[in-house]
């Protein structure tokens, strides 16, 4: 009798654990995504959403529905800023199994589909902790392409995921800020869906993507070409040395 009960108990445990492994979940996090890149007159803040399952994640920045974007700003020092939105929102698509990510990057106005690795972050975990949306979070720091960032991630959500390009922490990133106040993403709401959710790439042909290294080479080439450009009306052109990521180091 005791043996039967013991076997029954073990079998039950085994069945329950198998069911837990088969359970499909998806994570949806709403963030506030904010940037104020050097040289621009004002900060741009938009709502953004991360959706993630165990294979893929998709981060969308909602510029299209942002009513607060200022179209034109002048300052008194002979500068005009013209703000435009693209016809679709920008996305960061991550293939978690292959540890790659895809994004649209621009040289001037020309877009390029760029493929990058998600294993590019050399995180340093610290002992600093704080609560975000009732989740216990640990601090991590990283230097990523010219800026220092401080992130808070939680292991209480059963996903290893993060907003924008950030990833490769042992949990879900709920907050990340650059130490120079240029870049900031903060979670507002976390949902876990107990159902299988398909995540599809928003880009038509991932095979056409160029690597980040190829892209930065093209960017530097264009930057140098424009240094000597002047048209028939005596107008010169340039592209910035940095956006969120630094392309051209300062001398």
């Amino acid at each position, binding site marked *: 009798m005791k043996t039967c009960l013991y076997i029954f108990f073990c079998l039950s445990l085994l069945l329950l654990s198998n069911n837990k492994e088969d359970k499909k979940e998806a994570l949806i996090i709403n963030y506030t995504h904010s*940037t104020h*890149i050097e*040289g*621009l007159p004002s900060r*741009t803040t*938009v709502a953004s959403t991360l959706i993630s399952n165990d294979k893929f994640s998709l981060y969308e*920045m909602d*510029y299209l529905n942002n009513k607060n*974007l200022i179209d034109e700003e*002048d300052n008194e020092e*002979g*500068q*005009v*800023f*013209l*703000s*435009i*939105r*693209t016809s679709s929102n*920008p996305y960061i698509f991550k293939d978690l199994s292959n540890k790659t990510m895809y994004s649209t990057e*621009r040289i*001037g*106005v*020309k877009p390029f589909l760029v493929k990058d690795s998600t294993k590019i972050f050399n995180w340093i975990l610290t002992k600093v902790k704080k609560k975000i949306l009732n989740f216990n979070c640990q601090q991590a720091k990283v230097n990523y392409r010219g800026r220092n960032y401080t992130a808070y991630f939680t292991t209480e959500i059963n996903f290893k995921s993060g907003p924008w390009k950030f990833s490769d922490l042992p949990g879900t990133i709920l907050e990340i800020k650059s130490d120079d106040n240029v870049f900031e993403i903060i979670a507002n709401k976390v949902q876990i869906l107990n159902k299988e959710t398909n995540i599809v790439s928003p880009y038509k042909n991932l095979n056409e993507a160029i690597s980040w290294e190829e892209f930065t080479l093209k960017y530097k080439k264009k930057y140098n070409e424009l240094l000597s450009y002047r*048209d028939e*009306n*005596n*107008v*010169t*052109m*340039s*592209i*910035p040395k940095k*956006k*969120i990521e630094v392309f051209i180091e300062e001398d």
Partner: protein
Amino acid sequence: MKKLIFLFVLSLGFMSFSSNEIIENEKQISTCCTATLIINGEPGPSATAFVSGIGPETSKLACSLATSKLAQQLSISAN
């Protein structure tokens, strides 16, 4: 007499040099304006126009040239 003629020729040369200098200085006065495109919150290309002269009308012209250049870039990209 010869000295007077010599001094007269020298002074003519001095005056022409001075007026050339003034003309050169006027040529060097120009106004510039830089127009920058911001795409989805990120800085895009900038165009800077230089126009001879000073004043609000010159500044307006320079900014107009710079923004036209950016519009041209956008239209090339769209096509």
